[in-house]
């Protein structure tokens, strides 16, 4: 164990002595966590809306008012011609056009039905599509109001039928009743940042010693391969865990992210996950001839891992074949576990699947790392 102690100590001295690296490894990720959590805010609010009101009736005014008081929409313009509305959308000024046809109110009474149209600028992704969802919910509730309003007038004509059976709905948003988007993003981003950081650092580590030539001096010593790999891993494991503590603290202080579950599960998982990621990083490092190569290989994986981790877009929406690719993706598991435990209070049994898969990944990656580290050329 003396050997291990000295390798670990050496890595720490090197980390500490590198004046440029230290702030990059500690301060930058934290700044990123804060910045990105604000940036990666897909909360649908301030959706730019153009209402094409061709009716100009009491109903249309009521509907517009109802939309105005909801805090999710910016009514940019009340247009009177389709041409005008179209142009606004083309210029990217509006995300959604709500078209109220002429004679809407009159037809509603006459035909006992009305038609509204939503034209959604789908380029803006979730803002527009989710915005359309919110808008139709507002219209539904407006519908209920005017239906009640229309019913007495029906009764007067004597054609009021028997009250009709219908199913009403009651809904609840669990775990995040205010639909706070940051609660969703902060844990995920934290997991992602910690993973990228340690993976990049380890991937460049061994190959750096090879490039500078110091590895040769190590290779003529009787050090065991696993001792060397472990000695390279532990410092970064510690670094990752420390960042995790800082990140969670900031998440609580700045964003008030709920922490419903047992934090011990979070840290235990973080430990397993980092072990896996470090193994992968060292494996890449062993296979690379230059730091540049190591870095680009890592980047290739990291970008794919991030995009397919469910961090920004739901895994369930991916085609089935693509979902299989999330199984060997450590970031995907990290993001899931962080969200489940922190936000939903999931227990160990609930996330056991992720523990199992990640543990297998850890064994595989580290075996590869030890196997690929060759003291003989």
């Amino acid at each position, binding site marked *: 164990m*003396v*050997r291990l*102690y*000295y*390798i670990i*100590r*050496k890595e720490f*001295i*090197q980390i500490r*002595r*590198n004046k440029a690296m230290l702030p990059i490894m500690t301060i930058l990720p934290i700044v990123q966590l804060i910045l990105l959590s604000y940036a990666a805010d897909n909360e649908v609010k301030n959706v730019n809306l153009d209402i094409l009101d061709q009716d100009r009736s009491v109903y249309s005014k009521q509907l517009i008012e109802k939309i105005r008081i909801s805090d999710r929409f910016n009514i940019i313009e009340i247009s009177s011609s389709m041409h005008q509305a179209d142009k606004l959308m083309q210029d990217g000024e509006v995300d959604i056009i709500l078209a109220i046809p002429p004679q809407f109110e009159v037809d509603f009474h006459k035909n006992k039905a009305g038609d509204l149209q939503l034209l959604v600028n789908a380029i803006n992704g979730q803002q527009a599509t989710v915005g359309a969802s919110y808008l139709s919910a507002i219209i539904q509730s407006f519908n209920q109001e005017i239906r009640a309003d229309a019913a007495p007038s029906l009764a007067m004509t004597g054609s009021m039928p028997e009250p009709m059976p219908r199913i009403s709905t009651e809904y609840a948003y669990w775990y995040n009743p205010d639909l706070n988007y940051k609660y969703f993003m902060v844990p995920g981003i934290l997991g992602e940042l910690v993973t990228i950081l340690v993976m990049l650092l380890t991937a460049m580590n061994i190959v750096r010693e090879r490039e*500078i*030539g*110091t*590895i*040769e*001096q*190590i*290779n*003529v*010593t*009787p*050090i*065991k391969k696993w001792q060397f790999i472990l000695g390279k891993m532990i410092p970064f494991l510690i670094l990752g865990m420390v960042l995790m503590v800082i990140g969670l603290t900031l998440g609580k202080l700045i964003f008030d992210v709920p922490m419903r579950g047992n934090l011990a599960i979070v840290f235990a998982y973080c430990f397993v996950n980092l072990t896996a990621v470090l193994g992968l990083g060292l494996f890449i490092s062993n296979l690379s001839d230059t730091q540049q190569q190591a870095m680009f290989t890592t980047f290739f994986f990291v970008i794919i891992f991030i995009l397919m981790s469910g961090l920004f877009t739901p895994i369930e929406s991916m085609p089935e074949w693509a979902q299989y690719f999330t199984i060997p993706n450590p970031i995907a598991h990290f993001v899931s576990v962080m969200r489940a435990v922190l936000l939903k209070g999931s227990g160990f049994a609930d996330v056991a699947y992720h523990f199992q898969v990640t543990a297998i990944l850890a064994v595989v990656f580290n075996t590869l790392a030890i196997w690929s580290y060759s*003291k*003989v*050329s």
Partner: protein
Amino acid sequence: MPSEIVIKVNNLTKKFGDFTAVDQITFDVKVGEIFGFLGANGAGKTTAIKMLIGLNRPTDGEAQVAGYDVYRETEKIKQNIGYMSQKFSLYEDLSVRQNIEFYGGIYGLPRKAIRKKTDEIIQKLGLQDRAKKVVGDLPLGWKQRLAFAVAGVHDPRIIFLDEPTGGVDPVTRRQFWEMIYESANNGVTIFVTTHYMDEAEYCDRISIMVDGEIKALGTPAELKAKFSSETMDDVFIKLARG
């Protein structure tokens, strides 16, 4: 037993594809000897040394170092040898003390021994004032002496030196050789490659390698006599011209 053989090499060969870097070399090195391994750049010295210390796997032939086989027992060999490479390979961003301690640790010395050994080395090199300084800031001559000391931190039976004195002035080289002599007097076998022919004179026995083959082997005096030359330089040039 002064005549005990500590390195035994028999027809050792290394090929890289079609190119034969080391071609069936055969020699023995005795305990406490300073064995000079001479040759021009690219003659195959470094490849040969790397096979003996377990960094390269031989293609063919046999060799035992410190009684262990170079194919199967490389890790045992490593416990018994020290190595200083051509290129300075201590950590430039670690201090003198940290480097010594680190290698002491890697070789698995107990903590107390590491501390004692570190103090000893710093004392011997006269680096007391600079022990806490980063190695990268030392002059080359100091770096090389430090590297030699570190190669011997675990009291190995053999120390391999691959062109240890490249790029330093004659005075510094002289100091370096004094360190080598001291180790040899303590019973450590020294295996040193060089292309400085004056250094060859300091060796007990030398071998001269040309194009991957050993073309001459013996004490400096024997070789000079054999090739009827005044200096080792002469011997070398005669051999190199073939």
